[in-house]
């Protein structure tokens, strides 16, 4: 025997060594960023905030409303010295959930301190019940007391330990007058031959089927197999006839503006925020759906930093400016008084302060429908999937 390695041994050891070296290295490389569970209780210098498009006051929208102030994000940065990385990266709830759930399910962070998720989709409940979110630090949110009573005890988070409303909005219908006459009902949207192939609906079940159920005269807050099947059949008919172009997330907006969509189901503030006078939005004649988007702190996010921001947004003055700039409904007490101070006309903006008559037309989705796997399957099937 001698000590010299054979060629075979060398290769074998080399390969084994390479595996040992490379596999953990690769895993570590994939896991970069975001950090783990261990959140410190220090306020960071940077806030990473993931939100939907068309959802915050911008210099343009403020100027259009006659408000000559820095945006709420700029004010926050100046006041606290915390830089905000504002990521417009949520197009729909399922897509975003899919993107982050892999890391969250392993207890890893996603590099975001706040994400926004809607209560009329199943995913907000999934984040909270799977413990993929962290408790708010209410000691840093004295403005928590400004939360309106109607939002204090939602079923998915009865004590608001994990979430705070970002905005409420309404499901309705929008059309582009350059290419279409006014469209005011789901019936027209689904059956008017002039709109054929140029109609958009959402890929989220609660929003789309909610409006269809109202058109059918069914109650979206109390869904039965019969009313669900009626609604699905109606959507299926509009798909088969070629009436519906596509199922959208928030990406319907540019397509409507371009005119490839003549009319589409649309969220209340988006159309105003686009600022295009050719676009119009209405509550359908048979009624609309109201929903609330919620801020949550995913695992790995900095609770103190996120809580500081939430506290800032729950200042009535800040929320009023945001609300005018984004054209969505605030859940903060005393916003109307502040909004009138900023611009007296905006006190009557129906998108921000819906009248009783509009609110009486609003309905909520049945949470049991959203989590029913049979319904979810049928909903994908109608989209050809």
């Amino acid at each position, binding site marked *: 025997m001698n000590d010299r390695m054979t060629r*075979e041994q060398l*290769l*074998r050891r080399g*390969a084994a060594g*390479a*595996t040992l070296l490379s*596999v953990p290295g690769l895993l570590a490389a994939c896991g970069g960023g975001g950090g783990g569970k261990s959140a410190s209780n220090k306020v960071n210098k940077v806030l990473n905030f993931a939100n939907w498009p068309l959802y915050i006051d911008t210099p343009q929208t403020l100027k259009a409303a006659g408000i000559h102030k820095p945006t709420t994000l700029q004010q926050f940065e100046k006041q606290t010295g915390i830089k905000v990385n504002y990521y417009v990266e949520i197009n729909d709830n*399922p*897509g975003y959930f*899919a993107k982050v*759930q892999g890391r969250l*399910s392993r207890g890893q962070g996603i590099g975001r301190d706040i994400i926004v998720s809607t209560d009329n989709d199943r995913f907000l409940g*999934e984040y909270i019940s*799977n413990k993929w979110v962290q408790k708010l630090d209410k000691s840093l949110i004295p403005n928590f007391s400004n939360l309106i009573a109607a939002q204090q005890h939602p079923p998915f988070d009865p004590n608001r330990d994990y979430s705070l409303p970002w905005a409420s909005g309404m499901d309705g219908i929008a059309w582009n007058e350059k*290419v279409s006459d006014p469209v005011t009902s789901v019936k027209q949207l689904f059956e008017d031959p002039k709109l*054929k*192939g*140029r109609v958009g609906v959402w*890929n989220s079940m609660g929003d789309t089927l909610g409006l269809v159920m109202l058109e059918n005269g069914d109650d979206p807050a109390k869904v039965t197999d019969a009313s669900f099947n009626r609604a699905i059949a109606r959507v299926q008919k509009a*798909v*088969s006839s*070629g009436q*519906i*172009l*596509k*199922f959208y997330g928030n990406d319907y907006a540019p397509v409507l503006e*371009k*005119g*490839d969509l003549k009319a589409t189901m649309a969220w209340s503030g988006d159309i105003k925020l686009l600022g295009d006078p050719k676009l119009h939005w209405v509550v359908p004649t048979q009624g609309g759906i109201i929903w609330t988007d919620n801020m949550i702190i995913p695992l790995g996010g900095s609770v103190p930093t996120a809580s500081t921001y939430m506290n800032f947004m729950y200042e009535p003055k800040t929320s009023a400016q945001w609300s005018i700039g984004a054209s969505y409904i605030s859940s903060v007490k005393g916003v109307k008084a502040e909004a009138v101070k900023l611009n007296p006309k905006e006190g009557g903006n129906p998108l921000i302060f819906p009248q009783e008559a509009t609110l009486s037309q609003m309905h909520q989705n049945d949470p049991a429908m959203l989590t029913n*796997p049979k319904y*979810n*399957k049928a909903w*994908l*099937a*109608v*989209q*050809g*999937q």
Partner: protein
Amino acid sequence: MLLAPGMLWLAIFFLVPMGFLGYQSLQSGIFPNFHFTWQFANFSSAISGYHTQLVRSFFYAGIATVACLVLAYPLAYWIAFRAGPWRNLFLLFIVAPFFVTYLVRTLAWLNILGDEGPIVRILKDVHILGPNGRLLATTFAVVAGITYNFFPFMALPLYVSLEQIDARLLEAAKDLYASPTKAFLRVTLPLSAPGIVAGTLLTFIPAAGDFINAYFLGTPNQTMIGNVIQAKFLESLDYPTAASLSFILMGTIMVMLLVYAWIVGTEKLTG
């Protein structure tokens, strides 16, 4: 033993993920609680539920492959035999659009083919399209998108095999009184067969699993099997069905490949 690094690579990046996918395809339950139960029913329910999209995918991929071949062959032929010193420049023209990402290229077509876009307007003005005619959101748009996106995978192997043909063989054919057509059919075409085979495989296999083109350029009536798998994985979080559909797609392609190999002969597959 010299194969060891290769085998290791194959094991880590192919067999292990594949095994995991197979394991997932036989699970049952609802997200996030799946259990391994040898649920072979996943496969039968996937086939019965989504055979339409499966057949449609192979149909679209087939047309796109033929279209690629018909468009790419003359181009590759011309570059190989006629472009002379400009060859590399023309090859660059084929490849250049692919410096831009796949997604952006497809989104560009969304704008070009749009109902309010320039092409539809021109086609309507010259009455090729009727007043309600359109390009976007049709089967044509989806197949055209796939054809466009996979074109270089056809053109480049064709060019390589055509470029290698010895020009003296064509001269010899001419000397033996073969007409240009006959020389092409008896000499050029057979000698370029490896390129045709490689090109069709490189185009057809990824095209069958594609979902970007159907998503952006089609409607729910044009969804392909890739869209279904995508939605099952990411939207309904139904991992077992998604995994079994992936296996069905893979298996079907494998069978088609074997039949194809048997028809054209295996030596062509390996060039």
